[in-house]
């Protein structure tokens, strides 16, 4: 296999890693703060992809379509938190299973609205070309995905480390009771985090659209990936989500390219290794 093959696959891998980061960052924050793995997160991603496809059909520019889908999915996330998860407060098992129910409803309504055929999203025209670097050609869109993911990661880390909101979220992740005790409005944080996480997933769906396209089953394809990234990277850690996403991006991409039959199994090896060696994840904090 040529150098071009390895270079292109590497770029594909980091682009996939970038997409996974958009998916997993919000999942990790929600899990970290609310102690609930949001099983509708794959559905949020898929809904974002479909909403993006519809917005692009209406001739919206790509960035606007992405923004609209992110807002739409984010609002849905906030509403779900207010209307459903809040009523199950204190019953974490009930909350998880309710998000599972929501995941089925989203999947079914997407199938009803957009049908069973995959919809492809075309990237912005100025990114539909190859860029030559050192004699090798790279698809510009995947480079752009990587750049966007890195930018968002830096923004999120800045949000978490430098702002008051971030400090409150970190306090809530570390010790919810204590945070409530010192007057942090944890309940409002839940809604905020759910909005942010869902919006990121929706954005990821649109950004991933030109690579993955929108199809029924995209949700259950993506949800386990988010689980693995978070198990690997540690719960509630943005840096962990980024590193975990990149590792899984590589394994996913090279697994599919080299061993198509076993791509799925290979994908879960790092999760198993992490569970055996360091159960709290690479960057996880020790749970309270």
């Amino acid at each position: 296999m040529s150098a071009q093959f390895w270079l292109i696959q590497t770029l594909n891998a980091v682009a996939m890693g970038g997409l996974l980061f958009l998916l997993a960052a919000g999942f990790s924050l929600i899990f970290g703060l609310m102690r609930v793995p949001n099983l509708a997160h794959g559905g949020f991603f898929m809904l974002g992809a479909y909403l993006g496809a519809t917005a692009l059909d209406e001739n919206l520019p790509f960035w606007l379509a992405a923004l609209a889908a992110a807002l739409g999915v984010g609002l849905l996330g906030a509403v779900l938190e207010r209307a459903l998860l809040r009523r199950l407060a204190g019953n974490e098992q009930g909350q998880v299973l309710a998000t599972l129910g929501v995941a089925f409803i989203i999947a079914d309504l997407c199938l009803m609205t957009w049908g069973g055929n995959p919809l492809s999203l075309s990237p912005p025209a100025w990114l539909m070309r190859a860029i030559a670097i050192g004699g090798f050609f790279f698809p510009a869109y995947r480079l752009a995905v990587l750049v966007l993911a890195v930018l968002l990661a830096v923004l999120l880390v800045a949000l978490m480390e430098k702002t008051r909101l971030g400090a409150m979220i970190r306090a809530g992740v570390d010790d919810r009771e204590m945070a409530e005790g010192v007057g942090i409005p944890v309940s409002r944080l839940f809604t905020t985090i759910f909005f942010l996480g869902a919006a990121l997933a929706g954005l990821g769906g649109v950004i991933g659209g030109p690579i993955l396209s929108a199809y029924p089953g995209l949700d259950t394809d993506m949800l386990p990936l988010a689980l693995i990234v978070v198990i690997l990277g540690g719960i509630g850690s943005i840096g962990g989500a980024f590193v975990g996403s990149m590792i899984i991006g590589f394994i996913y991409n090279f697994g599919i390219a080299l061993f198509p039959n076993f791509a799925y199994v290979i994908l879960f090896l790092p999760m198993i290794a992490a569970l055996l060696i360091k159960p709290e994840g690479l960057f996880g904090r020790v749970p309270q």
Partner: protein
Amino acid sequence: MSLRCSAARSLPALGLVLLLAVLPFILPGPFYIAIAHQILIYALLALSLDILVGHGGMISLAQAAFLGVPAYVYVGLSARAGLSPLPAALSALAAGTALAGLFGVLALRARGLGFLMITLALGQVVWGLAYRWVDLTGGDNGMRLSARPRPFGLDLGRPIPFYYFVSVIFLAALFFLRRFARSAFGASLRGTRDQPRRMAMLGHHVFRIRWLAFIYSGFLGSIAGVLFALSFRFISPQTMTLQQAAEVLLMVILGGPGTLAGPLIGAVIITLVKTVVSSYVARWYTVLGLIFIGVELFLPEGLVPGFARLRRRLGAALLARRRPA
């Protein structure tokens, strides 16, 4: 225990045996008899999951793997390798039980929601293998079994003999589950659910108890898997989707975890609702999602414990009204 007391306690069991015995004569035709045996297969799977959920306090989303993997092994060995039914079935049970042992080692490293996430991921691995490893599994097209076997001249291809075949296995499993629930091992499993640290202090090996429960659950689930293969004579990755795993979990939670009647009632309700809904509209998964949310909001303990509490409360109210008179 007096004879009368023990008779009173086995009255529901006797009723169930009678009901299952006369059911084929009440039901109007083979279609309904087929639904009846499918309900029993799903109920068996739900009961196997309830060992983990009800007695062990571990919510698993991997139970569909024990429906699918043994079914794949059975169909693969019968249709492709030409093995006769009994060795094929035993191999299928062994494969499912071994898979449970492996899953248990991995998933039991976490508790609570971590356990749930890992079982979800493990279930998806198995689904992904069946879906992608086309050379072995036939991929999305699945694999077909040409005919049901004829053990001792009993033609399982006909609806009523097959129904009784499934019923007998179901009742045997139910009998063993009842003994399991009352056994010392069942008690120690519930101990690890409620007081894991105290159990460890008392010298119980908590991990081993949970792991054995996982294997036992996988073995019972595998029986449902082989029956599933015989029932549908077809196996595809659809059998092992997250939706399928969630349906079985919903049967347990809706009926009431930790009771023998709960998963059975849950299986009856969910299978009937699914059959009816699917024959009118194609929106079964929306209904499934709504039931999930509804159960969590309004019936978190399940039907059987919910009704038991309601009856106790009614009984207490009646007593309170009688007393002044």
